[in-house]
C-alpha cells in the first residue's frame, strides 16, 4: 500500500479502528420558513395566513433547552436549533468519529399533525429539503424517508416518490402513533418498503394520540424517556403477533433509541407465552425470539448502560445474535461524552459487526464506494 492509500484507510477506520456507519443522527428543520420554498403556493399562503409559519414544530419530548436535547459542545451558536447545520453535523459526527456514512432521521413536529393533507405536504417538503440541503451537500449522508404516519395511501405515495433516489435508505415511523404498528392498516407501507428494500426505522417518540405509557399520563421527562422502551416492547410484540414478518418476509425493522438490554427478558417471556397461545396466531410459526433476530435491528445509543462491561457482554449473548446491534451516536442528543459512543464491551469481530456489517446488511440500498 502506498502512503496515500494507507492514510485513506486510516482515515476511514476512524477512531474505532474500523470504519463506521452511524445509523441515527438528527438533522433539525430550522423553522417552517426554511421549508417555504418546498411548499406550493396554496400551502405557502395557508401557512402564512394561519400563522403556522411561526410555529416551531418541536417535539414535546425534546424542547431545545432540555439537557438531553443537545450535548453542550454540540449546541449551535446564536440559539440555532441543535442539529440544524449540515456542515457542523458533518464535523461533529462524521469527521469526529470517522464514520463513513450517517443516516438522518428527521423527527419533526409535523409527524403529529391530524390533517392527512398537511402531514403529507410537510413530509414531502422535508424530504425535498433533506435531499437538497443535506444529501446534496455531503455525500456521506443518507436519510430515512419522512412519511405522513396516519395515511398509508399518502405514505406509500411519498415512498414511491423517493424510491428512485438511493440516498433515501429507509422509512421513518414513530414508536407511538395512532395504532399498534403490526395492524393491517400499516401494511401498504410495509409492502412498499419491502419492494424497494427500505427498512422501517421505528424511532423513539410519540404523536401523543395516547398517553405515552400504558398506565396513563406521566408528569416528568424522566418518565417519558424511560418509558419509551415499554412502547418498543409493545410494538415488537404487535409486529410479531399480527404477522408482519410472515406477510413480508423480506422486511427489516430498525428500532432507534429503543435500548436493547430489555430484549433478553422480553424474548424469554414472549417465547414462553407463545407456546401456550400460539393457536390464536397460527402464522407465527417460530419462537418470537427467532423472528426478532431475523428481522429487527437496534441502534446502540442511548444505551441502557449496564454498570459493568461484563453485563453487556452477557446481554448480547442472551440476545443470541451478533447481527442485531448497529452503531449510532444519536447526534445531537446528549447520550455520552467525548467519543464514547461504542460501549467498551463491544470488541473484536462483534465491534466490526456493530460498526459496519450489520448496517450494511440491513440498509440494502446503502451502496458502499470502495
Amino acid at each position, binding site marked *: 500500500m502506498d502512503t496515500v492509500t494507507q492514510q485513506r484507510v486510516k482515515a476511514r477506520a476512524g477512531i474505532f479502528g474500523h470504519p463506521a456507519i452511524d445509523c441515527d443522527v438528527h438533522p433539525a428543520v430550522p423553522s417552517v420558513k426554511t421549508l417555504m420554498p418546498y411548499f406550493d403556493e396554496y400551502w405557502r399562503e395557508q401557512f402564512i395566513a394561519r400563522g403556522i409559519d411561526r410555529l416551531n414544530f418541536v417535539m414535546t419530548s425534546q424542547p431545545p433547552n432540555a439537557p438531553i436535547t443537545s450535548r453542550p459542545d454540540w449546541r449551535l451558536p446564536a440559539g440555532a436549533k441543535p442539529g440544524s447545520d449540515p456542515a457542523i453535523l458533518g464535523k461533529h459526527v462524521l469527521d469526529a468519529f470517522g464514520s463513513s456514512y450517517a443516516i438522518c432521521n428527521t423527527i419533526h413536529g409535523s409527524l403529529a399533525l391530524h390533517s392527512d393533507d398537511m402531514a403529507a405536504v410537510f413530509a414531502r417538503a422535508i424530504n425535498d429539503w433533506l435531499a437538497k440541503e443535506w444529501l446534496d451537500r455531503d455525500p456521506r449522508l443518507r436519510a430515512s424517508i419522512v412519511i405522513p404516519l396516519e395515511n398509508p395511501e399518502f405514505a406509500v405515495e411519498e415512498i414511491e416518490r423517493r424510491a428512485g433516489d438511493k440516498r433515501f435508505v429507509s422509512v421513518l415511523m414513530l414508536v407511538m402513533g395512532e395504532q399498534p404498528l403490526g395492524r393491517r392498516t400499516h401494511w401498504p407501507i410495509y409492502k412498499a418498503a419491502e419492494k424497494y428494500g427500505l427498512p422501517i426505522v421505528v424511532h423513539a417518540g410519540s404523536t401523543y394520540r395516547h398517553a405515552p405509557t400504558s398506565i396513563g399520563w406521566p408528569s416528568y421527562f424522566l418518565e417519558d424517556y424511560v418509558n419509551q422502551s415499554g412502547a418498543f416492547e409493545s410494538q415488537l410484540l404487535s409486529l410479531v403477533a*399480527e*404477522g408482519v414478518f*410472515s406477510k413480508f418476509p423480506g422486511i427489516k425493522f430498525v428500532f432507534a433509541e429503543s435500548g436493547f438490554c430489555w430484549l433478553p427478558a422480553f424474548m424469554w417471556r414472549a417465547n414462553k407465552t407463545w*407456546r401456550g397461545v*400460539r*393457536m390464536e396466531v*397460527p*402464522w407465527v410459526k417460530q419462537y418470537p425470539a427467532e423472528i426478532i433476530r431475523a428481522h429487527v435491528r437496534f441502534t446502540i445509543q442511548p444505551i441502557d448502560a449496564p454498570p459493568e462491561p461484563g453485563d453487556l457482554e452477557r446481554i448480547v449473548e442472551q440476545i443470541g445474535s451478533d447481527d442485531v446491534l448497529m452503531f449510532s451516536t444519536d447526534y445531537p442528543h446528549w447520550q455520552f461524552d467525548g467519543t464514547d459512543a461504542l460501549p467498551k464491551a463491544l470488541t473484536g469481530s462483534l465491534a466490526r459487526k456493530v460498526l459496519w456489517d450489520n448496517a450494511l446488511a440491513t440498509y440494502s440500498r446503502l451502496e458502499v464506494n470502495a
Partner: protein
Amino acid sequence: MSWHVVAKVGEIEPGTSKVVTVRGRELGVFNVKGDYYALANKCPHEGASLCKGRIIGLAESDEPGHYRLTRQGELLRCPWHGWEFDIRTGQSWCDPVRTKVKAYHVKVETGEEVEKLGDKSKGPYIAETFSVSVKDNYILVDV
C-alpha cells in the same frame, strides 16, 4: 419393558382416552381415529395431568388472517399452560426436538392370543381387576 393389557377394544371411544396405571406409572391411552397411542400422563413442562387436557386439531395458517384446522383429534393440549402435543409421537408442536412426552408402544391382540401368551414371567401381564375373554380384543402397552 413388557406388554401389559390395559383395556378392552371398544372401551376407549375414538377421540377419547383412558388413564391407566402400569408398574406404578400413570399413562393415558388414546384412541385417534381407531388407532391407539399411549403417553405418560405427565406434561414435560410442569407435570400437569395431560389426559385432563382437550384433544384438539392443529391450527395452521398460510398467512395472517387465514386460519385452518387440520389433523383434527391428533393433538393434545395441556390443561395448565396450553402446550400442544402430538398424540402420535408425544412431541411438543412448538419444540418437537427438546420437549416430548414419553410415548409407549401400543398393540392390539385377540383375547385368544393374550391368553396363549399370558405367562407369568414374560407377560403380557394382566391386571388382577381384568378378566380376559377369548371373544374380545385387547389393547396392550409396552412399559
